[in-house]
């Protein structure tokens, strides 16, 4: 019995979620009265193992296969390692790469899988908490199984900081290269361009609540009036209404302005990942249950088409006719 957590790295750096997995994994291992073991797969495994050697980790397995993430290598290596160490709980990150291998690993090992877990508790069985319906409700699930796989929501547990003295063991995975059906050819950075929203002190950020492209001049006028920069949630960019470099969030930009005015944005976890570091967050949203209010400092529960024109006029501007 053990807890096995799979770390993540990209382009030479251990990603934050790995340190969060140490915290979550240690918590679960304590509840279960067992060890916490980590796996580091690919890249500079020795260096990465040193990085993730934090207090509370008992053993770190290094699997020296490949440079960057390849889901075939991960899937094979984790299945072999899990077969050897027989973890009660297999913890993986609910990151984009986690989405690309965790379900396959769970299938391969025939483990029940619960994704995007935000909390757990042991009560004989394991009870996990997750969010549903865009974060409007929380649900708990009881896992009645000896062994299970979970993916852990990034940024939900604090990063483990204190140094540890885990045993580091090389694990020889037997990777069947002929079974690798994907080849990673490289990376591309996207979203450069005219404006750098990460530099802005004040962001007026618009979401799907704006409804139609024809309504954008309203928030453009507000941004102008305030001397702020316009940013947005993902659907606005998906629709082609604003360029990619304006997108705030997990797959967009991480911003840290003094003031972030979120207008018609629900506050989905992938959006929040990009803006929760703002000094002051103001939300304008018709839905008092929108998750954005969990992190907002100030809020107006009202229709943006009523509030924004008033705000523009407060500062002597003129709201456009829509």
């Amino acid at each position, binding site marked *: 019995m053990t807890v096995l957590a799979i770390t993540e790295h990209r382009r030479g750096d251990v990603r934050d979620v790995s340190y969060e997995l140490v915290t979550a994994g240690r918590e679960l291992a304590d509840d279960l009265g067992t060890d916490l073991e980590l796996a580091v797969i690919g890249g500079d495994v020795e260096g990465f193992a040193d990085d993730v050697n934090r207090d509370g980790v008992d053993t770190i397995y290094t699997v020296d296969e490949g440079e960057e993430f390849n*889901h075939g290598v991960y899937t094979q290596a984790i299945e072999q390692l899990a077969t050897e160490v027989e973890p009660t709980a297999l913890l993986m990150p609910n990151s*984009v790469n986690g*989405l*690309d*291998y*965790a*379900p*396959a690993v*769970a*299938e391969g090992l025939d483990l*029940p*899988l619960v*994704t*995007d877990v935000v909390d757990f508790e042991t009560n004989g069985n394991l*009870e996990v908490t997750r*969010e*549903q*319906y*865009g974060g*409007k*409700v*929380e*649900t*708990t*699930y*009881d896992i009645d199984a000896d062994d*299970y796989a979970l993916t852990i929501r990034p940024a939900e547990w604090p990063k483990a900081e204190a140094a540890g003295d885990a045993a580091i063991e090389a694990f020889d995975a037997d990777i069947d290269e002929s079974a690798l*059906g*994907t*080849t*990673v*050819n*490289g*990376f591309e*950075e996207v979203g450069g361009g005219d404006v750098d929203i990460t530099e802005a002190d004040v962001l007026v950020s618009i979401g799907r609540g704006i409804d139609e492209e024809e309504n954008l001049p309203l928030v453009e006028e507000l941004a102008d*009036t305030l*001397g*702020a920069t316009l940013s947005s949630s*993902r*659907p606005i960019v*998906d629709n082609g209404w604003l360029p990619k470099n304006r997108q705030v969030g*997990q*797959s*967009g*930009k*991480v911003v840290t302005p*003094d*003031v972030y005015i979120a207008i018609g944005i629900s506050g989905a976890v992938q959006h929040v990942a990009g803006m929760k570091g703002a000094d002051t967050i*103001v939300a304008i949203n018709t*839905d008092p*249950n929108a998750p954005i209010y*969990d992190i907002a*400092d*100030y*809020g*107006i529960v*009202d229709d943006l088409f*009523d509030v*924004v024109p*008033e705000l523009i006029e407060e500062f002597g501007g003129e709201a456009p006719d829509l």
Partner: protein
Amino acid sequence: MKILVTVKEVAEVDDEFQISGLDIDEGSLEYDLNEWDDYAVEEAVQISEENDDVEVVTVTIGPERAEETVRMALAKGADRALRVWDDSLENAQFLDVESKADILAAVVEEEDPDFVLTGVQAGDDANGATGVALADRIGFEWAAVVNALDIEAGVASVHRELEGGIEELTDVELPSVLTIQTGINEPRYASLRGIRQAQRKPLDVHTLDDLGLDDSVVESPVERTSMYEPESEGDATLWEGSAEETAGELATFLRDKGVVEG
């Protein structure tokens, strides 16, 4: 070439809602085609328009109500649809990732597609796992969170959208399951003509039995035990009053903060 697209009718929750038992009350829900699946359907239809002899088949697991959603996919250009449903699915508390993968795997076996497109996740339960679990189950290759796709000579060249504005460029051997991210294309609106045509396109209903499965596929060691409105972790100050008043409060705040002068 045959492309199978999995689609799901997802529930959207009204601003005011009630929870009854372990789920949101029906009266507080509206249903729509899952946002991510809309992009997957569009991608398949575009491939069929650019190539000869491509058939686009959609499959959904869902009650009769879901046919409205499926017809929408047909109206946008899919050729035919399958819906899987029966009493044991109706009575299941919910379907976990494994159950869905089992059912969809049986459909893949029957349809024998060249590749499968799914959405990255469903907007309601947001598991984000069905596509990759299915791929493993049926022995297909896969790629998750695809936001660019080019298919040539048995290989799908894709971009996988990673965190922080970085994309991974990957070649995936076919047959494969690709989970499609929003923004990969511009989903079309269903035209009136499309909607009329959709009424005449085949929409077959399969029971588990038809697929050679029995009700053990809905059994799961995972059981939902509660649903509740999370206590707001936030302590937001909510300004109240007319739009003029609340805008005035916000304006005062922005002046005090020094965001705007005067």
